[in-house]
């Protein structure tokens, strides 16, 4: 059973809600960490995961680059490399839409990192890989289809 882990992210999601909560005195200003987002990680579809993260009105953007294979050699290790060219990017989130739990993670680049990340993921089946970028209090998104297939014998 997993502990309810504290998120390590600065409150990059639901910026509006967090600001409201702080203003309402529900959270002290110094404590910007939300609980590890169980709701998002346990959501069974991308829409619910995004809702749990407070992502709304994500605009399609061509300024997010996803490097991932068209066909993955092995669905257990699929390379995804993301670069956001959107100014003011604070976080990058990844959803593998057809996975049993699509929300795969969020990378907080607001504290001194370049808006870039490379990760390797497990995919249950061919699926769009969707990226959402938070920048300047707004959300931007793009997706890339990755096909998975069984391989042969060797290698």
């Amino acid at each position, binding site marked *: 059973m997993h502990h309810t882990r504290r998120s390590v992210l600065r409150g990059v999601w639901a910026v509006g809600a967090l600001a409201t909560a702080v203003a309402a005195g529900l959270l002290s200003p110094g404590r910007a960490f939300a609980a590890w987002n169980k709701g998002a990680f346990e959501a069974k579809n991308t829409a619910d995961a995004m809702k749990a993260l407070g992502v709304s009105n994500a605009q399609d953007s061509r300024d997010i680059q996803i490097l991932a*294979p*068209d*066909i*993955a*050699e*092995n669905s*257990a*290790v699929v*390379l995804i*490399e993301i670069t956001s060219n959107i100014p003011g990017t604070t976080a990058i989130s990844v959803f593998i839409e057809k996975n049993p739990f699509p929300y795969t993670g969020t990378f907080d680049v607001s504290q001194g990192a370049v808006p870039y990340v490379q990760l*390797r993921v497990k995919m249950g089946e061919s699926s769009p890989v969707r990226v959402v970028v938070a920048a300047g209090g707004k959300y931007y998104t793009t997706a890339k289809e990755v096909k998975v*297939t*069984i*391989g*042969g*014998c*060797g*290698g």
Partner: protein
Amino acid sequence: MRHALVLGIAAAVAAAAPWPQAAAQTPDPTAAEFDKFREIMEQDNPAELFEVKGEELWRARRGPKNASLEQCDLGLGPGVVKGAYAQMPRYFADADRVMDAEARIVHCMMTLQGFTYAELAKQPFSSLVRTPDPVSLVTYVAAQSRGMKLAAPQNHPKERATYETGKAIFHFRAGAFDFSCASCHGVDDKRIRTQPLPNFTKPDQAIRAVQGWPGYRMTGGVMHSLQWRMNDCFRQQRFPEPGYASETVSALLSYLTVNANGQVYRGPGIKR
């Protein structure tokens, strides 16, 4: 006049020595993309975690004799690890046989540290919960030949004889399917599902038998060496298992490596 002379020379050369196929295999875009992403991932390869583990095992005092492997002679002198993997399989006088790297490591673990063959051969291949010590060790040893040209020697009569034995095994049809290694790996342009099957009888494709092994296999996320790969090929051919670290495996690896000699070994890789 000069044009005709050049053509004449070209014709003479072509007649004298059959020119190898310029394009070894028909390029396949899916396979090319697999290679591209695998090469990106190999720049940061989980195999490196096993290299680190292997080096610790190399230096640690272990076994009934409480000794390290630092005096193990991999062919370039006791304790010389750099470059040794690229020059194996080779003949070792103290064992009076040709050995591949893992067989030699097993030999050193037995003679220097006192481990028995029985205990090392019992479960010699990685599982999800356990990586056998020789696998981590051969990953470390192989990494020390990263970037070097393969140069498995053919100086000693037994080295040459072992190559011929390996070639014979490679072409030997047996088992329920009447397969030999050559059935899949002896002809150009063969494929199983999405995996292209290189023709190991040709030097420019034989490199693919050696390159990337030991390899971090994406299937299962485990480290596997050529000892595993040969065993698994035999299984796929419906052959009985070859002995772990046996002369049979050393012979096959001798055949494959010598065929690839001269080409650069890029170190432990990532495999499907």
